[in-house]
């Protein structure tokens, strides 16, 4: 078999070629175009002229950029904490040995996650829309919902709450991923530990705080960071529901990149923003490996 040294490389070539063609080339293009002043109209004429770092200087004075960064921070932190927290609770609930119909529950919980963002977006619009929405209609006749303060009509039109509404919808859609990840973690805790603790007279609360939570910490940590990495780039449901409005109030960073490129047609500036988005992702990734390294060193 030795003489066929080229076989392993040959098997990788198709995958590599596709990845380079669809990921690497565009990335290179973004680097170059980020240094140009270029619009959608320039694209077909091969136009655009080099302006150096001008786009990047512009970013640091761009009010909308800071606005999108702020929205991203709100959106990501609420979504991530919510998803991981509820994911943990539900995974824990599904591990309880007295609970029946586990795969039924788990199957239904996965629905929001496997439905397309367009269907999810529309379904939530139908619930929240000021005139036709189910929730405002129901709230107008239900004293109970009025008591809870849910009788508002401006879920999607009030600039000061719309980003929180999007975060809650993202928790709703993203919880199943955390649930699955943490179920995998819970599976790895041997039952014998719990039995031993029970023999020693530990109550349910003690078993939770002394066994489950310490042993789950690495899984929760990895889950937190993975969800953070994913959520920074999530904008499809927001695009469907509000396109970032009203008045940029729900425009997260990734959506700002998209809108700058395709709504405003500013390809050069949007490319520079793409690179910044990539750097934000890189930062989170580095943080991820630093935390993992730190934990390993502490455990060693």
């Amino acid at each position, binding site marked *: 078999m030795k003489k066929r040294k080229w076989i392993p490389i040959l098997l990788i070539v198709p995958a590599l070629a596709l990845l380079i063609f669809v990921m*690497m080339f565009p990335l290179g293009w973004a680097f170059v175009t980020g240094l140009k002043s270029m619009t959608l109209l320039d694209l077909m004429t091969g136009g655009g002229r080099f302006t150096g770092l001008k786009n990047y200087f512009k970013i640091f004075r761009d009010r909308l950029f800071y606005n999108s960064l702020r929205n991203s921070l709100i959106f990501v932190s609420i979504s991530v904490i919510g998803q991981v927290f509820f994911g943990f609770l539900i995974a824990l609930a599904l591990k309880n040995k007295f609970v029946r119909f586990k795969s039924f529950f788990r199957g239904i919980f996965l629905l929001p996650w496997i439905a397309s963002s367009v269907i999810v977006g529309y379904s939530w619009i139908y619930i929240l829309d000021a005139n036709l929405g189910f929730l405002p209609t129901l709230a107008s006749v239900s004293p109970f919902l009025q008591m809870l303060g849910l009788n508002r009509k401006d879920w999607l039109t009030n600039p000061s709450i719309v980003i929180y509404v999007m975060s809650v919808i993202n928790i709703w859609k993203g919880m199943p991923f955390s649930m699955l990840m943490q179920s995998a973690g819970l599976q790895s805790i041997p039952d014998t530990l719990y039995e031993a603790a029970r023999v020693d007279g530990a109550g349910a609360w003690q078993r939770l705080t002394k066994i489950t939570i310490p042993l789950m910490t690495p899984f929760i940590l990895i889950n937190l960071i993975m969800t953070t990495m994913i959520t920074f780039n999530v904008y499809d449901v927001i695009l469907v529901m509000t396109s970032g409005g009203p008045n940029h109030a729900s425009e997260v960073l990734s959506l700002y990149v998209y809108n700058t490129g395709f709504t405003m047609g500013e390809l050069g500036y949007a490319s520079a923003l793409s690179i910044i988005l990539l750097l934000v992702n890189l930062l989170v990734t580095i943080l991820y490996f630093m935390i993992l390294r730190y934990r390993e060193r502490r455990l060693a």
Partner: protein
Amino acid sequence: MKRWIPVVLVYIALIAWLLFSVFPFSTTLLIALKPKNAFMKFPPDYFSMKLTFENFKIVLSDKNWIKYYTDTIIIATLSAALSVLVGSLAAYSFARYEFRSKEFLMVFILALQMIPAASVIIPIYSMFATMNLLDTFLILILVDSVSSIPLIIWLMRGYFSTIPKELEEAAFIDGCSGMKAFWAVTFPLAAPGIAASAIYAFVRAFNDYIMARTLAGDRVVTYTVGLTMFTNQYEGVDLTLVSAAAFTALIPILIMFAIFHKHFIIGLTGGALKD
């Protein structure tokens, strides 16, 4: 005596989240089952029991909607096939062979996976626009495949490395060619992984909205983009039709999910949860 209290609390939590999970979908279904005029007045009529299948009949015989749907199935099927083929080949190589630059290539692919789609969508659009490839099946198949390939490589590498090399060598000695040994021995054993990969890639491509909207949407229209066109077409007039359309698009995924439930979870969690 107090033992049942925690279990009841657990059930309450599970049922609460269950209701939260299905609430938007059931609202959409309810709207889809309403007669046309239910939403032409204010307040809209959510609470009467007048239901009809009329909207589903209209949507399912709408030529445009059928075209959008067929386009989506074509794209999702071909991109699943392409990404599983290309991904398994690479995974097989990583699992079976030792070669120079193997480490580098694996890290390289992992790094490419970290590049967010949001930061390459502008250049992808621009590049393919200059190549005149926009609004074709090819472009969506390529882009959708690439978004699944890295995960498929990791998943399949795991599967291939659990299959003992000796099995293949035995087939080899019995006179099979290298290729035949792979198809006759390794491939069937890796079938669960391949099924999970294929379903993962199919669902990703089937549900894609941003790429389909940005890179196509004129001649090649997926159902996700078609749904937004439906909305514009019937805007303010017919909420019920759009809901019915959305629901017809949700049902195939639900059926697939019910059948392949297990593969689904393996694929979507990259093999982290196998039970």
